[in-house]
């Protein structure tokens, strides 16, 4: 009785606590309903498809579905160093015959050929025999198939079939790092002269790193100048940063293509000041130089804007205080001003690095062969070779890298602190 009297009631006689909780819950639902349309839209059109990319990158169910009886029979194949028992041959024969009837045998041959070279020939041979009805199903299939080609008598080929049994594989990810599953299932490196992907990953990191560095060294002074100049001047100079920021990426790339070409203005200038001979103009486009120069100019605003917004909040009296306490301008800058700008440096560098690591358009246009990045390789596999699962695998490897950086960014700066202009 005593506890009830202490409870505060609202006018309708409901305890205040309950009533408040109810209102709180209602507000939560209201807020969530406002976010729901966009969240749902993004989950369906964007987050799920990224999951779909993952499924495609590990999916290896094609062979699993094509050879169900073979793999069932292989469970009884115990000594893997010897040829499999008769049941495995029978299972494979029946699966293959079904595929041949449905015109699917070619796909299997190609897929197995990727696993071990030489499969295409021997599966085609088997196909011809089946078509001519030369195989006697009542006799031992092991003997008949073994007689077709010597490779059928080689246990390595049967081991290769067994390796394709699991419905999922990480082989595309290994391929992205220039590795593969060797015959005994261990991970091996491809030959040194064929390691193209590792070069691309390293080059992507290298270019992203140096572009970030260049942007930092060019962006820091001008952000400082913009933040310390009186408003009427800084507003005018801000246009120099904002106009490129708002201008189409392709327009800016086009202007660099004009500037850097062999008869272009930059080369003209070098000839004029006598740096290079007129008949020996250096190639500045279609190589790394072009990629560095164009990407630095294009990404510079993304460095300047976060730096500027942080520097704007630093009171100039701090530097004066540092100097009045006996520090030289350099010491005052290094001990007082610089540490205060670190959040801006972190934001700018990570933003530029994330953008640079996924760059595609500019390297493709001004980069030439030595300036292409991992994104170009992904696009190549999406459009030209149509190896979508490999493109997905490489995309996800890149995405993992970016998400790690994004996570660090979030820890250091917070995503909701991103400022635009």
């Amino acid at each position, binding site marked *: 009785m005593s506890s009830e009297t202490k409870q505060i009631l609202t006018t309708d006689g409901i305890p205040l606590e309950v009533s408040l909780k109810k209102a709180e819950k209602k507000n939560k639902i209201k807020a969530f309903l406002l976010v729901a349309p966009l969240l749902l839209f993004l989950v369906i*059109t964007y987050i799920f498809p990224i999951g779909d990319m993952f499924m495609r990158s590990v999916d290896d169910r094609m062979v699993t579905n094509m050879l169900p009886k073979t793999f069932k029979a292989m469970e009884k194949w115990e000594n893997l160093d010897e040829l499999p028992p008769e049941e495995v041959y029978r299972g494979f024969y029946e699966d293959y015959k079904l595929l041949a009837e449905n015109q699917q045998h070619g796909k299997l041959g190609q897929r197995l050929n990727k696993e071990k070279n030489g499969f295409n020939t021997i599966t085609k041979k088997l196909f011809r025999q089946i078509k001519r009805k030369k195989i006697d199903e009542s006799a031992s299939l092991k003997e008949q198939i073994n007689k077709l080609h010597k490779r059928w008598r080689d246990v390595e080929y049967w081991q290769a079939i067994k390796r394709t049994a699991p419905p999922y594989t990480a082989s595309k990810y290994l391929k992205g790092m220039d590795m593969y599953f060797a015959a005994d299932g261990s991970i091996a490196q491809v030959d040194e002269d064929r390691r193209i992907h590792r070069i691309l990953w390293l080059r992507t990191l290298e270019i992203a790193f140096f572009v970030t560095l260049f942007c930092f060294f060019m*962006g820091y002074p001008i952000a400082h100048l913009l933040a310390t100049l009186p408003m009427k001047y800084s507003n005018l100079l801000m246009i120099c940063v904002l106009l490129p920021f708002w201008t189409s990426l392709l*327009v800016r790339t086009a202007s660099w293509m004009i500037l850097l070409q062999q008869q272009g203005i930059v080369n003209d200038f070098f000839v004029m000041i006598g740096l290079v001979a007129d008949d020996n103009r250096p190639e500045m486009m279609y190589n790394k130089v072009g990629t560095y120069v164009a990407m630095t100019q294009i990404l510079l605003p993304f460095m300047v804007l976060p730096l500027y917004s942080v520097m704007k909040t630093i009171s100039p009296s701090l530097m004066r205080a540092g100097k009045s306490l006996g520090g030289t301008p350099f010491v005052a800058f290094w001990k007082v001003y610089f540490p205060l700008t670190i959040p801006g440096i972190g934001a700018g560098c990570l933003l530029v690095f994330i953008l640079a690591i996924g760059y595609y358009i500019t390297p*493709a246009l001004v980069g030439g062969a030595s300036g292409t990045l991992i994104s170009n390789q992904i696009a190549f596999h999406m459009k030209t070779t149509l190896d979508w699962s490999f493109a997905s695998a490489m995309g996800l490897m*890149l995405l993992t890298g970016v998400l790690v950086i994004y996570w660090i960014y979030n820890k250091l700066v917070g995503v909701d602190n991103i400022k635009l202009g």
Partner: protein
Amino acid sequence: MALPSYTETRYRIWHYIYIAICSFVFFFLIAPLFVIFPLSFNAEEFLVFSEGMKNLDPDAFSLRWYKDMIYGTKNPWGLAAKNSFIIAIFATIGSIILGTLAALGLSSRHMPYKGIIMATLISPMIVPLIISGVAIFFFMAKAGLAATHTGIVLAHIILGTPFVVITVTATLSGFDHSVTRAAASLGSNPVNTFMKITLPLILPGVISGGLFAFVTSFDEVVVVLFLAGLENTTIPVQMWTGLREQLSPTILAVATCLILLSTLILVSAELLRRRSERLRGINR
């Protein structure tokens, strides 16, 4: 940036070096844009300054590439421009509606799981475009929307909403919620309150987010390259093809028009930012 008279010589020198570095960087940023202007009026087919242009000979300048851009029979710029504007306008409207609603929800202090939802909503801005392109292509291909305007508009809404969410959330962070409570206590329903009170106050943020979404869509090429068929070509796709195959002065004429457009957008964005700061009572 005048130096006080007591500055020592070495700091004076250092100061001038600093000014020189800054001038160089500003020049590096802005000069490439101005190369395009004169060359787009070149009377010849080459992308270098001819002798006539260097001597300012009026005959060396002409409008032929602009004429070619508009009337050229083989040029797809007309179709591309039409597509670009249609796609960008619809993508902007979609981004504004979805993004503003989400920002209103996210700014409420009752919003559960704020951090992770914000991270999800902003992810299209952080994920490299090539990956977004692949993922969106897989979805559109399954949904039967590849090579349609609808598909490209939806893709650009995905890429544009993060900007609207960020700018509107920023505007709402300085928003005085007592004005909506005042409206409610005076008998206004939530929709009316939003239209009459909240929207006018956050409008600068909404429009500047919309401008970002518009530019993102108008300038986007990676995703469109995956999605577009011949009929959905846009200005950036045409420029991409043109730059890869052969750099013709017509592209420079188009580029000049695009720079003028971006100047226009820059000016409106800047005016909006100032208006927004005035409305929110931030004085600098």
